[in-house]
């Protein structure tokens, strides 16, 4: 120490401490995928990663009963975190779950890394192709023709509304009458103005939740099939609708899926919510005491798709064959209907839309709305949209511009130019 001198010791301390800088940024710890082989060599553990509630609890019990050597571990996490985790494990080369759910918003990102997943076509998956909606099958197909996912659900759009709040505002409460109120988004905004004028409360949760469903209804989204940014088409229509809603002062300006939004449910801060089938489960979990207060009407402007997932099997897993078997079992009609009844996720196999079990189903929580009929009808009218590689970041960038308008830090007139600028930046990032 003496020889080094005080100065150099301090310099070393500074250097060593600063190295913490970089190392502090490293990612999450790796976990094993939990594959355990018993002494008998038979026991298999399959870890399934997904988000929210995909209605797997009952399926797990049933499958384990029929396959005593298979143990299924369910790992539900946060939507973005699960996708990010999968991406990190793919880079690391191990640690991914045996089966991972991937959402529409991320499928393009993962299908461009198709060699890291089991190709279902190598495992006899081709038999499933005719059963699926053609665009659902195509979305998880890699450019070189590998199928990395078997579809679970699609997110056909409807409009959920609070019939109790509608009643207070003197609006119709029957779902057919409500659907007739808004055949277009302009009419929808007019209804919102009436509601806000009568009650003093906001109508929609946020400008971004106007933007997203309207965008989903456009024939072309952010990107065309050549992966070029097309802001003047669909995005412009959707952006204008969002600006109209903000200017009409009917938006509560809450960020979706965040604590303030959840609180907004409980404090009646908004009365409508664009809801794909999978949103029903979310409403039910967030506001369980609002049973019977929600109902479902048609969405303005016709169909549209928002979200929907696939089951993928990362190739790094030790029991990929068993995992593929389980996925094939999960996408069978009986299981898909079971999931639909438990959480409301709408299957992506059109044959099921004719199935009496789906058509006759009424969702008790949503005032006994015939969710089967409603969502089956929207799903068949879907105009699938191509989602580019950079769709996710571009959406975030444009949503941020809408948020700035809501926060008052950006004038609505200047917003569109800013949205184009930010979207272009995101498309090149």
């Amino acid at each position, binding site marked *: 120490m003496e020889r080094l001198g005080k100065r150099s010791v*301090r*310099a070393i*301390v*500074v*250097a*060593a*401490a*600063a*190295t*913490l*800088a*970089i*190392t*502090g*940024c*490293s990612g999450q710890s790796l976990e094993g995928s939990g594959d355990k082989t018993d002494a008998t060599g038979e026991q298999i553990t399959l870890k399934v990663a997904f988000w929210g509630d995909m209605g797997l609890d009952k399926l797990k019990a049933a499958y384990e009963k029929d396959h005593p050597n298979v143990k299924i571990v369910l790992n539900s996490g*946060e*939507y*973005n*975190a699960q996708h*990010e985790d999968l*991406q*990190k494990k793919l*880079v690391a080369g191990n640690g991914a779950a045996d089966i991972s759910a991937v959402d529409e918003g991320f499928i393009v*990102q993962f299908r*461009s*890394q198709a*060699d890291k997943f089991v190709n279902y076509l190598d495992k006899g998956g081709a038999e499933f192709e005719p059963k699926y909606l053609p665009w659902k099958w195509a979305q998880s197909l890699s450019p070189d023709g590998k199928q990395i996912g078997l579809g679970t659900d699609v997110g056909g759009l409807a409009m959920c509304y609070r019939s109790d709040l509608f009643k207070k505002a003197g609006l119709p409460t029957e779902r057919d009458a409500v659907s007739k109120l808004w055949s277009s988004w302009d009419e929808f905004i007019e209804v919102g103005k009436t509601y806000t004028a009568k009650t003093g409360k906001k109508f929609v949760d946020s400008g971004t939740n106007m933007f997203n469903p309207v965008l989903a209804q456009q024939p072309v989204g952010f990107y065309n099939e050549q992966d070029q940014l097309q802001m003047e088409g669909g995005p412009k229509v959707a952006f204008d609708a969002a600006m109209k809603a903000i200017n009409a002062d009917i938006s509560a300006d809450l*960020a*979706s899926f*965040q*604590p*303030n939004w959840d*609180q907004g449910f409980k404090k009646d*801060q908004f009365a409508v919510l664009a809801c794909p089938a999978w949103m029903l489960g979310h409403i039910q979990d967030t506001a369980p005491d609002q049973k019977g207060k929600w109902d479902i009407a048609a969405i303005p402007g016709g169909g549209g798709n928002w979200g929907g997932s696939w089951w993928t099997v990362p190739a790094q897993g030790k029991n990929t064959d068993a995992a593929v078997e389980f996925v094939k079992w999960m996408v069978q009609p009986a299981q898909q209907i079971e999931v639909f009844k438990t959480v409301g996720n709408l299957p992506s196999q059109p044959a099921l839309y004719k199935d009496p079990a789906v058509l006759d189903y009424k969702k008790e929580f949503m005032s006994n709305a015939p969710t089967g009929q409603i969502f089956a009808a929207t799903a068949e009218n879907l105009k699938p949209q191509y989602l580019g*590689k*950079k769709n*996710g*970041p571009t959406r*975030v*960038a444009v*949503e*941020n*511009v809408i*948020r*700035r308008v809501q*926060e*008052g*830090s*950006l004038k609505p007139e200047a917003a569109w130019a800013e949205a184009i600028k930010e979207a272009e930046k995101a498309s090149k*990032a």
Partner: protein
Amino acid sequence: MSLTQLRPAPPHDPSPPKSPGRIKLWLYRFDTKSVPYALIAPFFILFGVFGLFPIVFNGVVALRNWRLDDPTLTGWAGFENFTKLAQDEDFWNALGNTFGIFLLSTIPQLLLALLVASILNRKLRAMTWWRIGVLLPYLTPVVASTLVFAVFFSRDYGMANWFLGLVGFGQETPLDWRAAKWSSWLAIATMVNWKWIGYNALLYLSAMQTIPKDVYEAAAVDGAGPWRQLWRITVPMIQPVVVFTVILSTIGGLQLFNEPMMFDENPQSASGGSDHQFQTIAQLIYKVGWKDLNLGYAAAMSWALFLIILIVAGVNALLTKRIGGDR
């Protein structure tokens, strides 16, 4: 019979010390020469694996193309990532935010810690209770406390706005803390200060307790008040600890991630507010790496941050020495 008589112990016949065997000698030498190194080795091994290797690997990645969404784009990029960095508005914006929040948090934090420590250094009732008490914020998991603060600073039902209303600054439209740079920086700096004041105060306190009391007594006789004693005696005498805390808070401040991340309305976008008004560099690195999936560029940013911290920590250490009156 005399009690004082001491009988000398019978002469003990000391057997001549055995010449130690070779093995023993070797063991002895091993003990004195090598064991200290062996004992300190785990640190360096761990540092090598979790510190040095990531830095070097980051440096290599920074010079390469590595995009997760485009596996075909690989190979060496040279300094392309770094030249891109120099022209990246987002990077400079994040750098500005990071320094802004860093100044707003570190300076009040260390000054207040000094005050708290000098108060705790007096005779107080329930002294241990107070001393443990100031450490409690440090023990709280950062995610938990940040979530609470995020609600505290929320627009619609936040307590911060309620307080503002109480003291007469209530506004017609409630203040949206996240919307502007100044308010978001202030909110984030508050979280950082809350967490680290107690920790730094305890470090200062332990250093203060090594200062001999007579120095203060002499100063008091010469007519120095408490304030003067603090700045003329305490601070210079605990200067090494002050340097240490300055370096630590520089590192912590420039790597700020959790607080701005959790403070955001939409944390998963990692955009640090709708207009990146409070996006820090660590957040930007995360966004570029895991949202834009550009690992090469993210690695270049990490290295840039590393160098910036190295420089700033060095400058701060020098400055602190000057202020402390070292030379």
